[in-house]
């Protein structure tokens, strides 16, 4: 469902134009119905890879497809729901209007938007705030409104960049429940996190990215068989990447 073929990304930094490699030859295939956790420390390249998938930035080399369509084609995003890290929406719109916008741009009719909005607003627990302007929302509420918008058109592929960030325990449970539900519905979920527990709880497979390079991709079962928990496996990969030796 998601195919990444040898993607690299370089950014030019500062006035000297010094090149910084954010991603190096990333190869990844995520199958339909799979929940894939993208794990890595801060600045590892997780968001860069996701932004290339969403065509917000362009790869320096390599290609990527979603549902067989090149990510540079806007139609590739018809089957994708995306929640950015720390989302920010229009201050003066209400959650209802945000969902209307999401539905309309995905080609949905008014009735379908209303039905899906009612369902999602209830799921993300924003029933009492749906008519309020988003500038009055807390960070967690904005995150939940963003999640509802990502899912408004019932997408086949859901891409979430740090979906648990900034959420309180109730919000984290709600997002977790939604991930489980999406998995039950056979959706393809690609989510990034630096929280090991989230990856461990929800993923079928996980990839560990460090310094722009994908170090490991395997099923959760195989990864966990290599240590007492994912933290141990992850720390070993970090140590190896930094030139140390595996403990």
């Amino acid at each position: 469902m998601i195919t990444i073929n040898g993607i690299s990304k370089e950014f030019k930094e500062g006035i000297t134009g010094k090149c910084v490699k954010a991603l190096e030859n990333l190869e990844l295939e995520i199958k339909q119905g799979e929940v894939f956790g993208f794990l890595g420390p801060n600045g590892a390249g997780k968001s860069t890879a996701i932004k290339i998938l969403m065509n917000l930035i362009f790869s320096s080399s390599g290609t990527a497809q979603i549902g067989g369509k090149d990510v540079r084609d806007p139609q590739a995003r018809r089957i994708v729901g995306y929640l950015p890290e720390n989302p920010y929406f229009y201050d003066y719109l209400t959650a209802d209007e945000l969902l209307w916008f999401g539905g309309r741009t995905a080609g949905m009719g008014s009735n379908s938007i209303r039905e899906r909005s009612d369902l999602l607003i209830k799921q993300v627990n924003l029933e009492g705030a749906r008519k309020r302007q988003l500038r009055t929302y807390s960070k967690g509420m904005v995150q939940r409104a963003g999640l509802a918008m990502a899912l408004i058109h019932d997408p086949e592929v859901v891409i979430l960049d740090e979906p648990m960030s900034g959420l309180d325990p109730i919000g984290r449970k709600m997002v977790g429940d939604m991930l489980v539900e999406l998995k039950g519905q056979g959706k393809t979920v690609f989510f990034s996190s630096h929280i090991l527990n989230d990856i461990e709880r929800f993923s079928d497979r996980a990839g560990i990215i460090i310094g722009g390079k994908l170090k490991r991709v395997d099923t959760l079962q195989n990864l966990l068989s290599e240590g007492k928990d994912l933290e141990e496996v992850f720390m070993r990969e970090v140590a190896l990447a930094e030139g140390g030796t595996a403990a």
Partner: protein
Amino acid sequence: MTTFWPIALITFKEGIRNRAIYGITLVALLLFGATVLVATMVPREVGKVAVDMALSTISFAGLLVVLFVGINLMAKDLDKRTIYTVLSRPISRSQYIVGKYFGMIMLITVTMGILSFLAISAIVMLKTIHGSFFTRFSWQTIILADCLTVLMLIVLSAISFLFASFTSSSFITLILTIITYIIGQSLSGVKALLEAPSYEIGFTVSPVTVNMVNAAYYLFPNLSLFDIKLQAAHALPVSSSFIIWTILYGFIYIVLSITLAALIFRKKEFP
């Protein structure tokens, strides 16, 4: 249309609900009040002063809408990364720019409609009280002057979109738009001055300055073309060919600016 219209509509809603709009309308209300007061102080010229001040107020308030609400509508998307949400939908970047621009046109049209209503109310009130001093008066020219002001603001907004497409912050866009407005309003006057014989203006202008002014004249929009407040105040006739050419000029500038903005935006990254 399915992707273009929702962008235009949320842009309009986001703009019209901005509290700055209320502030600008309040300032305009105060200025219309001042128009009534000042105009009554010059009884013989009350008609001319009323029309001139009312149209100037519309123009000033409209400029504030473009500079402090309009630019933010586009630039805030980039500053705050709201654009992630919009561009993650199945829409192209060109559709985003065009949708956003149409939302801005709607915002300018609606706010200017409200301001024009207030301006006309002030003029009607003064005309009712001091009818005998409104000898040279034409509603037609006043409405025309108002419409051309709206067109000028729509052109300026298109240029602000062009700047926003390649600058990295809303502040730079604001500064560039203000500079363009000032140059656009004064350029034809400066050009006329430089082209006048040196014995008339009393000094000699270097060829380099003349070339620079000529280059700026063709590069920047001549916004003074859209300003016919003087004709409206004195009820002077305005030729239909002038109106048609001015509208065409504005339209060409809009199409060029938005097309260029869309082309630049296609290559822009949002890290």
